[in-house]
């Protein structure tokens, strides 16, 4: 059962959508030229690569950096890489990192200041990254996550210029999933595995990797003017019905492989009205409050600020860093923390992610990528926690 999409509709502002989608077939051997075309246009291409036993995002030198022939095996609290039998370039699902690593950096300097007499002067306010990034390999769930963070950081009362500058300059190349991990549940969240058509999803190119009898190639769809321009720079061949069918089947296969799901019907009320559900004690007994889930989650956006000054005391800097609602200090106000127990902190994270987010931003904060399940050291499964809450749930007002 596919629950209705909880993604709010959005307007694209960054890339002008094409009036008519451009479809083409790109041979796998041509992918390197696509990357070169992006580089020659001044983009820093960032894509997946194998490092430290995982598939992570990093700056790419060439197509050789891609994790050809690798896949990932994921389960609650488990992640390992495994060799594939073919040479698929994007034959994995999702790694521990998401694109928020680049759009909403873990550490960034907000500004610096120097003393001037009794007062001070703000020195610089650099927000632009050196080269605009091109993200190669954005999954449907990751696109949805970017859209969610756009709503939080750009479309509410205030505008975050750091996110805004990186976001407006980023070129997005989505690669659809043709397989799912057991931890995936994007289907039930309405965020994938297909990259939704139409102007709602902000993306420049959408690729689907095809490994069928016609050879290793990609179905490419340009969904923006600049996406179409890049496509013009590489050799492509026309799309046939068979190509379209193969691509659709691949994505369908990924969807049908998903074993986990969240039933979002009445989820806000479920979480708001079950503050004292015994299940919270159950999960609290397991949760280490290690904050892994918030770090790997592509929509978690919480940050803290840190003030530093040099030895002379004349030069100060204000830095912004990722923070997590799982820490004791997160809810500290003079005298103590409001959420001292792990139970309160886990409950806060889950209630915010699945329920309060809807009141705050008009959609769920969860995109069903499953990273929190994979990277939780004790394998806590958010989909299982929702199911457990529904059992013995209270339906009245507390």
């Amino acid at each position: 059962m596919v629950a209705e999409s909880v993604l709010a509709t959005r307007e694209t502002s960054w890339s002008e959508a094409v009036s008519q989608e451009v479809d083409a077939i790109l041979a796998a051997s041509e992918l390197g030229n696509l990357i070169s075309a992006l580089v020659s246009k001044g983009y820093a291409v960032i894509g997946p690569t194998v490092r430290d036993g995982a598939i992570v995002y990093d700056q790419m030198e060439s197509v050789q950096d891609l994790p050809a022939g690798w896949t990932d095996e994921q389960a609650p609290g488990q992640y390992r890489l495994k060799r594939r039998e073919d040479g698929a370039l994007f034959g994995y699902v999702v790694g521990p990192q998401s694109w928020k690593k680049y759009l909403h950096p873990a550490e960034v300097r907000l500004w610096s200041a120097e003393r001037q007499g009794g007062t001070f002067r703000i020195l610089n306010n650099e927000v632009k990254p050196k080269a605009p990034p091109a993200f190669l390999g954005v999954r449907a769930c990751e696109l949805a996550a970017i859209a969610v963070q756009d709503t939080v950081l750009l479309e509410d009362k205030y505008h975050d210029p750091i996110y805004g500058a990186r976001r407006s300059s980023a070129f997005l190349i989505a690669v659809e999933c043709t397989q799912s991990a057991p931890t995936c549940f994007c289907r039930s969240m309405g965020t994938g595995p297909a990259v939704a058509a139409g102007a709602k999803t902000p993306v420049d190119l959408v690729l689907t990797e095809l490994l069928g009898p016609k050879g290793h190639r990609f179905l490419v769809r340009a969904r923006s003017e600049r996406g179409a321009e890049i496509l013009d720079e590489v050799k492509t061949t026309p799309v046939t019905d068979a190509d379209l069918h193969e691509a659709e089947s691949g994505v369908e296969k990924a969807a049908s492989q998903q074993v986990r799901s969240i039933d979002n019907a009445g989820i806000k009320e479920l979480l708001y009205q079950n503050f004292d559900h015994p299940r919270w004690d159950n999960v609290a007994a397991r949760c280490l409050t290690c904050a892994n889930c918030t770090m790997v989650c592509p929509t978690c956006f919480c940050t803290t600020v840190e003030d530093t000054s040099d030895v002379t005391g004349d030069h100060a800097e204000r830095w912004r860093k990722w923070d997590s609602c799982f820490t004791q200090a997160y809810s500290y106000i003079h005298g103590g923390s409001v959420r001292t127990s792990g139970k309160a902190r886990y409950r806060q994270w889950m209630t915010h992610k699945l329920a309060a987010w809807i009141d705050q931003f008009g959609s769920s904060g969860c995109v069903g990528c499953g990273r929190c399940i994979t990277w939780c050291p004790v394998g806590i499964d958010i989909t299982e926690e929702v199911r457990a809450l529904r059992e013995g749930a209270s339906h009245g007002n507390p």
Partner: protein
Amino acid sequence: MATAVTTDPMLPQPYLVQAVSKETPDTFTLKLTSEDEPNGRSFRPGQFSMLWVFGVGELPISISGNPAEHKQLVYTVRSVGQATNALVTQRVGAGVGVRGPYGTGWPMDAARGRDVIVVAGGIGLAPLRPVIYEVLHHREDFGRLVVLYGARSPRDLLYRQELAAWARQRETQVLVTVDYGGMSWRGHVGVVTTLFKYARLKPAQSVAMVCGPEIMMRFVARELMTFGLSRNDIYLSMERNMKCAVGFCGHCQYGPHFICKDGPVFPYEKLRSLMEKYEL
């Protein structure tokens, strides 16, 4: 969805300390001005600023001055830790970074034509002082003004001379109490809720604005309802950890509300189910 503010919300504007005066042993009032902003910054009662001390840190502090005189930004700060202590020990001429004002303010529009009940506990009188100024400045626009103020002990009372001056205004009642009287206090002793029975209240035409420690606000709200006020006419100013004040850092969330932009002032109706939840 409102139009997003597009200037960098994290950049402070340097202001200079014009005066620092001591209100109580641990509470000081700072007055700030800026040559770059000769008109200061206009604000609504109940709003707050983020004040930055060079190399130390930034704090959310309620604006406690007169909204009609915003050329000078006025803040009453209680020293409770490293950052607040750094703020209150700034000398005249020192630079303090200012961001804001932020937040929803007290419901001055809803209070027009009605009686205004101000209930303050401790430092909570500071964010309510602008309300008193505004009511007295536009006297014809409001009904009676009742100020109920409680502090820990007599030496912790803020704005004592002003309290006496306000008490002399027409249609204004000021009642003060302390938790611990000490040796020479001849006034009322007891928590601020014990003042209610002496207040001349007309519940059906009153709007109450409450600020103080959270437990105190909870008791006060309940007591106000016992006296007949509706939960939509009782407003509380909430507080949580704040790092950015613009809805990005996530720290100030209280249920689904961001205290920095959905608050800090909320009608009790919105808070009732939240305030009873332990460790929310």
